[in-house]
């Protein structure tokens, strides 16, 4: 029977229209605030997504490797309270294979949230071609599996990624350093010919293992250091180069949700006696930088919203004073305190909603300007920054709620006005 807030809506809109300049100014103020919040949110999420993509594009979300060798004390148990001063020489870490990795792979693949699993063998070596020699990191993989971890095929800049026996994919800078083009051969030498169980720590047998490979593709990992050092060979070739026949030095995982990595790592480390690291462990400084960035954007957004709330509130406080008489007459005519309260709450909501609509448009404009004017050295936009409809809606909803909250105090004041006094004014 009672049309929803018909009276309140009508009066709120008229009051706002009546205070033209005042209403316009505060709506523009809210719009500016909303635009800043929307723009910063879009910018930071674009920036973070870009940074994450760059970082995670060349590395696994979770990496499993053998536990490191440690020195255990052989001392007999001492009586309680005995202080022991000991100095221990840390063990040199030799290349070791993950035990039973072949049976581990299907188990990992079956875990929920795991998108890809890639066993691999890594080791250090030298790449030789003619007089040139470069220190490299040998990475032995199954191409299809590895591709799902780092999107290798998308990073190929020359040739076609293929890893048949005797073939290799190498980093762009390394190819330049060695003067290698697609189709050329290079030699790979490793110093681990002594075998894994010999206990020799110097690796100075002199004879190392040499292999030769034809380059099928050059890749750009997006990280110069990787481009300069990486040589990707078939798993089997790497196993013999590193001296771990049939072994795997680590297993890389890609997850569907990158943020689930720490939890999964902890779970895996508890289940199996391996060293499990998430990308957050290996990029601790990046993670803390991202966190700091998120916190400061949150802070900026909060401060802007507080300013918006104060702006709306101050205008409405003035409106209540200006409209004392009209409030009084409405009350005399039978308007309830609740109705007067809602008239002002509604004004806050309308200002918030109109301001956010305008603000979102403004933010879209700012983003368009950013994308067209701010370009990288290659003339392309630095990174994708978009204001998703979901984000825009969320911000608009928050601003509207802020408008209502801002109106609470003035609205209560209006509702509490003594009608007899208000009319006499």
């Amino acid at each position: 029977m009672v049309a929803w807030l018909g009276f309140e809506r009508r009066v709120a809109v008229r009051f706002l229209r009546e205070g033209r300049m005042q209403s316009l100014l505060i709506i523009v103020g809210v719009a500016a605030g909303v635009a800043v919040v929307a723009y910063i949110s879009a910018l930071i999420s674009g920036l973070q997504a870009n940074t994450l993509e760059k970082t995670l594009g060349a590395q696994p979300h979770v990496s499993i490797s053998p536990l490191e060798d440690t020195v255990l004390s052989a001392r007999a148990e001492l009586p309680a309270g005995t202080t022991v001063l000991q100095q221990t020489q840390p063990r040199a870490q030799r290349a070791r294979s993950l035990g039973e990795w072949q049976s581990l792979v299907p188990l990992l693949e079956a875990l929920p949230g795991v998108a890809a699993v890639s066993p691999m063998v890594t080791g250090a070596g030298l790449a030789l071609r003619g007089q040139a020699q470069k220190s490299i990191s040998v990475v032995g993989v199954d191409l299809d599996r590895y591709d799902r971890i780092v999107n290798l095929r998308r990073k190929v800049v020359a040739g076609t990624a293929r890893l048949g026996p005797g073939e290799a994919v190498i980093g762009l800078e390394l190819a330049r350093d060695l003067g290698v083009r697609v189709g050329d051969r290079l030699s790979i030498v490793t110093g681990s010919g002594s075998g894994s169980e010999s206990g020799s720590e110097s690796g100075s047998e002199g004879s190392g293992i040499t292999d030769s490979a034809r380059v099928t593709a050059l890749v750009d990992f997006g990280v110069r250091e990787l481009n300069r050092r990486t040589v990707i060979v078939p798993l089997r070739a790497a196993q013999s180069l590193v001296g771990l026949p049939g072994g795997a030095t680590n297993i890389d995982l890609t997850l569907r949700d990158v943020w689930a990595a720490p939890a999964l790592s902890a779970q895996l480390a508890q289940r199996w006696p391996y060293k499990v690291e998430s990308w957050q462990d290996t990029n601790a400084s990046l993670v803390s930088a991202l966190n700091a960035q998120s916190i400061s954007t949150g802070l900026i957004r909060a401060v802007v919203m507080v300013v918006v709330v104060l702006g709306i509130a101050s205008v409405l406080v003035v409106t209540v004073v200006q409209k004392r008489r009209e409030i009084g007459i409405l009350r005399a005519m039978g308007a309830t305190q609740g109705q007067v309260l809602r008239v002002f709450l509604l004004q806050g909501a309308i200002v918030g909603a109109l301001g956010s609509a305008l603000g979102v448009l403004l933010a879209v404009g700012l983003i368009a300007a950013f994308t067209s004017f701010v370009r990288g050295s290659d003339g392309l936009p630095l990174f994708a920054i978009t204001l998703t409809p979901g984000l825009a809606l969320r911000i608009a909803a928050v601003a509207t709620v802020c408008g209502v909250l801002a109106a609470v105090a003035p609205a209560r004041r209006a509702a509490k006005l003594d009608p007899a006094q208000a009319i006499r004014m």
Partner: protein
Amino acid sequence: MSPTTPTPATGNASATASVSPLIEGVDLRKSYNLGQPNEAEVLHGVSLTLARGEFVALIGPSGSGKSTLLNIIGLLERATAGHYRVQGQETTGLGDAELTALRGRALGFVFQFHHLLPAFTALENVTLPALMREGRVSAAQLARAREVLAAMGLEQAMAKRPGELSGGMQQRVAIARALVLQPPLVLADEPTGNLDTASSNEVFALMRRMHAELQISFLIVTHDPRLAARCDRVIELVDGRIERDEPVRAQPAEPPDQGLA
């Protein structure tokens, strides 16, 4: 001081006066700044009764407590002591919401300074009470508002904002607004105090006509003795007490420019 006697129906429009009084105030007192050193009692035990269909003037010098009494009768203020009943309902102890509802149902207001909402047209001002009560204005209510405005000679003014109307026209719109829901009692605080003689006569005549046509009671605060003399009953308030409460005996001749009453 003088004891209040419910006035018997006095001729013309009051013929429909019902047995139960429309409003009844018993020993009403009002003090401001209660409990403070500057506490002051402005009404010292006022008792009065209004029957349905009366047309009453409330007169008295400035500071006599007229406005305070009107506010109490209008449920805009509460008496400090005493009893006040509207249509038989005791109002002492009612909460704000109940007072508001009763006010909306039983009372219409006309103020000295018109108090129309400047952002609304004349027609919208008149439909506000309906909008307020039901959240919407039905076609019937809209028609009724037009009818009342037309009856007051305001056909041309309906779509205009108060700022575009003369003082007399604004006051007529305010009367239309007070009458549109046909409350049993309209309280008018110096309704002509702000108008020139011609407009003042016009507005007064209009109130008399509505009283006659709709059997709506009027309580009019005024300090114009000529106006008071044209009401059916005069209550005079002096220093917060009723000094005189009597029917007006001889209706003076209507001024020549009056054709409406």
